[in-house]
């Protein structure tokens, strides 16, 4: 239940980023998992296809960094560190750029 709530939040954030960036897809997602997040990498990778199903991140490559520092101020959370989006939009966007 705890992890599902975290996943829902991540999913919402990734959809929002893709909209802002006008990115049709996300190629790679990098997550940082706190030492007190009550979540291990196996469970995370197991659930990930469901988390991203139907979002621009479906089929993306997932990279996970597990922290072992309980004093980190983010130790109870999962941090969406970065996402990679294709450069296409900058070539196809309004008037080019890129």
């Amino acid at each position, binding site marked *: 239940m705890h992890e599902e709530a975290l996943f829902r939040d991540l999913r919402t*954030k990734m959809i929002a980023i893709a909209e802002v960036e006008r990115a049709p897809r996300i190629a790679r997602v990098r997550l940082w998992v706190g030492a007190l997040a009550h979540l291990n990498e196996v469970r995370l990778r197991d659930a990930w296809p469901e988390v991203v199903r139907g979002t621009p991140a479906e089929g993306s490559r997932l990279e996970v960094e597990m922290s072992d520092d*309980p004093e980190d101020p983010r130790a109870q959370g999962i941090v969406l560190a*970065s*996402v990679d989006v294709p450069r296409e939009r900058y070539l196809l966007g309004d008037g080019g750029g890129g």
Partner: protein
Amino acid sequence: MTDRTIAVDYLARVEGEGSLRLRLEGGKATEVELRIFEPPRFFEALLRGRSYLEAPDITARICGICPVAYQMSACHAIERALGLRVDGALRDLRRLLYCGEWIESHALHIYLLHAPDFLGYPDAIRMAKDHRAAVETGLALKRAGNAILEFLGGREIHPVNVRVGGFYRVPARDELETLLPTLEPALAAAESTVRFAAGLPFPDVEEPYEFVALRHPDEYPMNEGELASSRGLALPQERFEEAFEEVQVPYSHALQARRRGGGTYLVGPLARYALNRGRLPPRTRSVVESIGLEPEVRNPYRSIIVRAVEVMLACEEAIRLIRGYSPPARAFVEPPSPFPGGVGAAVTEAPRGILFHRYGIGGDGRILEARIVPPTSQNQARIEEDLRHLVDARPDRSDAELTDACERAVRNHDPCISCATHFLRLEVERA
């Protein structure tokens, strides 16, 4: 085409799983509604039509913290339906697996969720700055519990090695003994955890709980025993539904269980301890006696001590079971032929309290009906009573003080929603 990396650094949060509505009139709480918004997941419906062999793996998905409990209740209920008896080394391995779950689940709650309340910290992160050794003890205990789950279950979360009738694979003795170097220091850490918890400062509160738990003649109950209560209930566990019912309340997605024709009751560590104190294993019993723990703990804040006692007994039991292990001749017991089908129910002791499963199985091995009553739904109405007493004792508190006090009162019972350290959205109506 190359990709562009967008740095986000966004911290995902748990929000909106629980809320509490209070209505205060004349210094009294007239309405207390603990709301749980986890969307319904329809597990009982999706089990229908599936093979009976799938039930342990499907129901394990209900909870990432206590999947073993779901697997055990499913297996026992289905085995009762099919007339299977699982004993000897297979029974011991199941108890060992349950020990692992109790250790990891309780250690998580004690050190990362509950202890900060008594030491004056808003969460475990702030506590770790001053009490790093305590937090690391908690993490080490959690790892010890997870080591049992991973070894016997195939992985830490949602184990895959449990099946109706036993296991898919059972370990050799020398394989199982590789857990001892992890569990022996864990037992010592668990003993220090009991003493640590007993030394915490507690509010002076007593609640008139009716405790409900399994009671076993020879052992502290996990997988077996009769249903018992502190007010005299004694019933074979498969007759759970004769004594308890679930009701839908309009403000919560979780059903609430009650005694039939009666009121609320409490399941979990306080209930197990009150009804089974005489079955503690020897080293744990001597530590319990040395700290002078009362025979019935009715102060919910002191549940942290009882949870620590259960971590210790689970470590002690795990070591005993490993040392006494001889591999069984077969990894699982086969159902009779021809396949009989039938109806069976069972209760086992999840870390948070009794977990009821009932299944109807057809002659083709398909599940015809399923019913699951988890511990959090059984405790929810009783938690509301704790909250009512808390509010009535000090109705003058500000909303912020009330939120903090109510969160602590809820965390005493380790419901699934307590995973979120700050989960409560509090609505207060003051008339």
